[in-house]
């Protein structure tokens, strides 16, 4: 097991550390790390709002506070909006505005490529995680992926009286004109559109014309374009019948009493990951505790509660799926579950995402 490098330890820090020996065991740390540096009063963790932050709080933040006494403040600034602030802080050698960023792997990879992320390779609990935790196409662990998720086809069952949609092409039925929704940059839909348009995944990113052709057809359906909260709102208010969205949003909407189901269509659905990372420029003691937070997020206990809330498969072996998601295609656990899911490396996504977003926007805004 790898060891965390410790900075100079103050007396106060040592005493504080001694008091937390019990907690350290639960954090998955050996007793040698009990002589930890001074604890900050709080750590700031950027998170998404709604059920996302509720799940993080219940699974990771509250238990971390209980173990260490360090309060966790959740900063709900959008991931896209915190990014330039962190980049600017690191470039200007200021202390960054957050300690831990809960981010999409694609966005986090941009930050890693820019060199603003701390190396997390020395987290002890990385010894117990699956391959999913490792960011693809990057050296070491500038990010730790913490779970995977699927961009499913969520639909209102009453709008599909003949049964669940089998293909993304089913959405081209004229009766769904104005009754569909996608993310406003098309995220989650580019890759299945490539297949639905008759193209091959191997042609990504070189030739994505089939995807653009299919998206152009879909544009004729006059879909709504929005963000996570919009989908729930639109389903709730009867504005849409189907959407390409993350399964967590669909599940949350269903929990709130909205008539909703979801499928992974025959062309497949995009599988992606989110992760945690730490920006450079933190004081040594705060960096240490930020790493402990991520290390704690990789324990089986924290993952179980956090991801039960999100309804997503984690990166620690032996997690139990929530009862309502056993056998669900949006909760892949076995290799065969991934056969119909589309996973493209973060590096390819990062290098081409801007162009894909522009292309999608050009079609939809035209």
């Amino acid at each position: 097991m790898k060891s965390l490098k410790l900075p100079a330890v103050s007396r106060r820090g040592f005493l504080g550390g001694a008091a937390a020996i019990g907690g350290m065991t639960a954090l998955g740390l050996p007793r040698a790390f009990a002589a930890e540096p001074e604890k900050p009063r709080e750590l700031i963790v950027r998170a998404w709002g709604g059920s996302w932050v509720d799940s993080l709080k219940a699974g990771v933040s509250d238990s971390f506070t209980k173990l260490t006494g360090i309060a966790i403040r959740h900063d709900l600034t959008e991931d896209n909006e915190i990014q330039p602030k962190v980049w600017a802080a690191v470039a200007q050698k200021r202390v960054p505005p957050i300690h831990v960023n809960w981010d999409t792997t694609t966005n986090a990879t941009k930050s890693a490529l820019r060199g603003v992320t701390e190396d997390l390779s020395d987290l002890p609990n990385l010894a117990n995680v699956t391959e999913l935790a490792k960011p693809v196409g990057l050296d070491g662990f500038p990010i730790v992926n913490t779970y995977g998720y699927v961009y499913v086809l969520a639909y209102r069952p009453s709008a599909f009286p003949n049964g669940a949609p089998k293909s993304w092409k089913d959405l081209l039925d004229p009766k769904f004109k104005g009754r569909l929704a996608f993310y406003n940059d098309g995220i989650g839909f580019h890759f299945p559109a490539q297949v639905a348009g008759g193209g091959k995944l191997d042609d990504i990113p070189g030739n994505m014309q089939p995807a653009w052709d299919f998206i152009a057809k879909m544009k004729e359906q006059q879909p709504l374009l929005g963000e996570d909260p919009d989908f729930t709102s639109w389903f709730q208010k009867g504005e849409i019948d189907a959407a390409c969205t993350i399964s967590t949003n669909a599940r949350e909407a269903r929990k709130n009493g909205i008539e909703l189901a979801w499928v992974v269509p025959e062309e497949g659905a995009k599988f992606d990951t989110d992760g945690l990372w730490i920006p450079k420029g933190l004081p040594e003691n705060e960096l240490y505790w930020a790493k402990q937070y991520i290390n704690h997020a990789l324990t089986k206990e924290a993952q179980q509660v956090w991801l039960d809330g999100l309804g997503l498969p984690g990166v620690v072996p032996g997690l139990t799926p929530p009862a309502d998601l056993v056998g669900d295609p949006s909760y892949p656990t076995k290799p065969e579950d991934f056969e119909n899911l589309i996973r493209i490396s973060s590096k390819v996504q990062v290098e081409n995402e801007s162009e894909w977003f522009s292309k999608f926007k050009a079609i939809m805004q035209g």
Partner: protein
Amino acid sequence: MRTAPKSYPLSWRILDALERLAAMLWPAGLKGAVPYVMLAPAVLLVGLLVLGLFQIADASLRTLDTTTFLFSEDYSLANYRRALTEPLFAAVAWRSLMAALIVTAVTLIFAFPYAYVMIRTRSPGLRKLLLIALFLPFFIGQVVRAYGWLIILGNQGMVNEALGLVGIAPMRLLYNYPAVLFGLVQYMLPFAVLMLAPALTAIPEEFEAAASSLGANWVRTFVHVVLPLARPGFIGAGVVVVTLSLTDFAIPAILGGGSQDFIANAIYDQFFRTSDQGLGATLTLMLVALGSLVVGLVFTLFGAGTLAMGRARR
């Protein structure tokens, strides 16, 4: 007989002391500099904005390297080339400009009678009512108002429910261009009324009475007397509404359903969605240029209106 010192009020003594202090801090010889000193905060503020524009201009000349997500050290016009050649930006710019012009025209048409009645009414009660109705929206932010329209105009909103009562099936009233224009007009109306009101106040009522006594009906009086004299108000209101509409972000984002982006939405996408601050900066400068061009054109053709603080009336 001299007044007893105790009759000299305390407030006067304080004022005397303050005057002495002011004379000590700002000698009479510097009196001529007072206007410039008072202007200093505004100059500083504008200076900061100009400094920001220089930084934006610098960023606009740098391209993003998506293998490192750092910006180029060298300057190039690549972002400007993209902004001018990609159909997305042309579509968004055209939509924004058209919306600004349509919203300005419609808003002025609605704002004028409102302002006219508010100024000319003999009923204090009606004037108060119109003033309250005018200022109330200012206490409600733009975003909240836009969400209000979602509730009213949605598929299950009040309007569709009312239509349902007479047997009309729910129809899509939101998430299209007309919905965005509607939201903008509603947002801009108070601004336009506020800009028109001073111009109408400055028109003596006697002018209208004189026209009437000379045989002009109300239409002729309105066309030949009121409208020409209200021109400064129209120009001031028009400039404010056209610039605010052209640069709006929230209304297109909320009422447009994601498919009716304006330039500001495209700028947001570049800064925060694709991390391409160079292209975002380019679009920002082009929006500033477009807005300045429109305002410059209005000033050249019609003068500065009420924004000239009375100079136009000389």
